[in-house]
């Protein structure tokens, strides 16, 4: 039963030894320090990194069924405008981010950083 499964999932989250070893992350390697990376680390990395316990990554893996990378920084299909739209409008469980959290200037740097491998 679906509800029972969800309760089990909830119970598992409350269990202290549920998470397996983290997968090695290649995300961000060699990206170089910068304003966009700093914003990413502060606001995005907690959900969108590789490894378990990253609900953004888990959600995107289900959404795209591995047709495209689930880890945000591994994506090559994102442009800066799309990143900015998601940040300001939110999507699924992710709420929008206010300008007191990510200013317009920070958003521009973040969007450029996340979309660095995307179409020009």
């Amino acid at each position, binding site marked *: 039963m679906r509800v029972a499964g969800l*309760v089990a999932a909830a119970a598992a989250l409350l269990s202290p030894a549920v998470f397996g*070893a983290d997968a090695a992350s290649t995300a961000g390697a060699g990206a170089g320090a910068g304003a966009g990376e700093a914003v990413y680390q502060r606001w995005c990395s907690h959900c969108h990194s590789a490894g378990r316990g990253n*609900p953004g990554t*888990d959600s995107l893996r289900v959404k795209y069924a591995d047709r495209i990378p689930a880890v945000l920084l591994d994506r090559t299909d994102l442009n800066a405008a799309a990143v900015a739209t998601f940040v300001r409008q939110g999507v*699924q469980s*992710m*709420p*929008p981010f*206010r300008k007191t959290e990510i200013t317009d200037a920070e958003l521009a740097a973040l969007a450029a950083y996340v979309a660095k491998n995307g179409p020009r």
Partner: protein
Amino acid sequence: MPTPPNVSTAAFNTALSAWRQTVGADWVFTKDEDIALYRDAYSPYWDEPEERLASAAVAPASVEEVQAVVRVANQHRIPLYAISTGRNLAYGGSAPVYSGSVVLDLKRMNRVLDVSARNAYALVEPGVSYFDLYNHITKAGLDVWIDPPDPGWGSVIGNALDGGGGWTAYPFRDHFGAHCGMEVVLANGEVVRTGMGALPNSPSWQHNRWGYGPWVDGLFRQGNMGIVTKMGFYLMPRPEAFQTSTIQASREEDIVPLLDTLNLLENQIVVNGSTGLFGGPRGPNAPAGAPAWTMQAPIYGPEKVVRAKMEHVRDLFMKIPGVRFTEGELFRTPLDAATLNRVRKVSFGVPDLSTFGMLGRSAANPNAPGGHIGFSPILPRTGEALLEFTRFYAENLATVSEGGALRFVGPVYMTNWERSLVALIMFPIGRDKAMNAKMRNAFTRWVELAAAKGWAEYRAPAIFQDVVADTYSFNNHALTRLRETIKDAVDPNGILSPGRYGVWPKHLRKG
């Protein structure tokens, strides 16, 4: 641009102009796309007329700026709704309780003012998140832990003021209970410091929470009597070790001695970690030998003490016939990175956001609508009460869930607070208005049914704060009336967070 209720456009424009002078034009938000950022992403009324919406937002960076903003609001009788990090998702997010309020966004007040490892406390501003405080402590190399709640981006102050809890040791995981001293801006713009902070130049503001005379800090918990701009918190010196145990019992009625034993161990502060409790009545198809109840009883402390306590805990639980007791792995802190990645981080004082995997889209729940709200009544910490609740839930589930059409998540039994249980039931919320309406109806029905049994919530989503407040009705709502009397005295124009947790100013009260 909308205007606040009962405020003229001219008066609002005058106030906005004054606020721009105070905080800078960049930090007064009046454009529709900026105000939209303050919507509650998990609102059960999303895109419906009843959705609670702001008229504007103002973001001061200092207590002096908060004072100036509040004075202008008071002069023009403009309702303000204070948020700290604005991440109170499932309880209203960054949206006001009273539509048309101006959100007072305190996120820019993000300074960690003091952390003492020697006396194990912190003093922070409202915009400081659990991530921020953790990073500050880590960078400074201080040997103290924070107590994170599930989402690490929440405000240390905001979570405490909303009645939130965390996952490490007693007494730190009751966040309001672990606070020590406040600074508060009142509706007239005056600044008050509580406890020892009322003594000019006191060196003991975060050393003694009571100070002298009647203690008023409780007025600001789930309250709207003032705007908290600083708050002290006790921190836990890093414990040398952590070990949990798993206790399983096969019969439903075993929950009575299980909880009695746990209570004794907790009330003697032998078990000091946040206990996990899972299970309930087993259906007819349950596998033979499957446990009815699984409990986890964690202990923090010096390794020798943890091991000695664990032996005692085992001895006590093993007195219950049929109980299985399994010691968990003993962890020595600080954990290395590999170990941290296989444990539940918040149990080790490390904030994260993994909780969003529980109700967000995931492999286990691919069609999750994204948001949720929680119904969480307080129960006595007895097995009899828990069994009564499980029967109550089972008896009413089919009706409230419309024959199973509505999928609730839970109940999850939380023991974050000493002496009681909280039975958490979560309701998925998304963008489907018809489904949201059904979930709202179900929520209200659970509140009513539970109240008839003498159970009510510890905390509620913004749109249900009146409904829940109404259940605390002893002696013709005497407690609500007392709060209203105080509200009228300290905020006579009713400008601070009208309606928060069911406390309305005089001019907005119904009936």
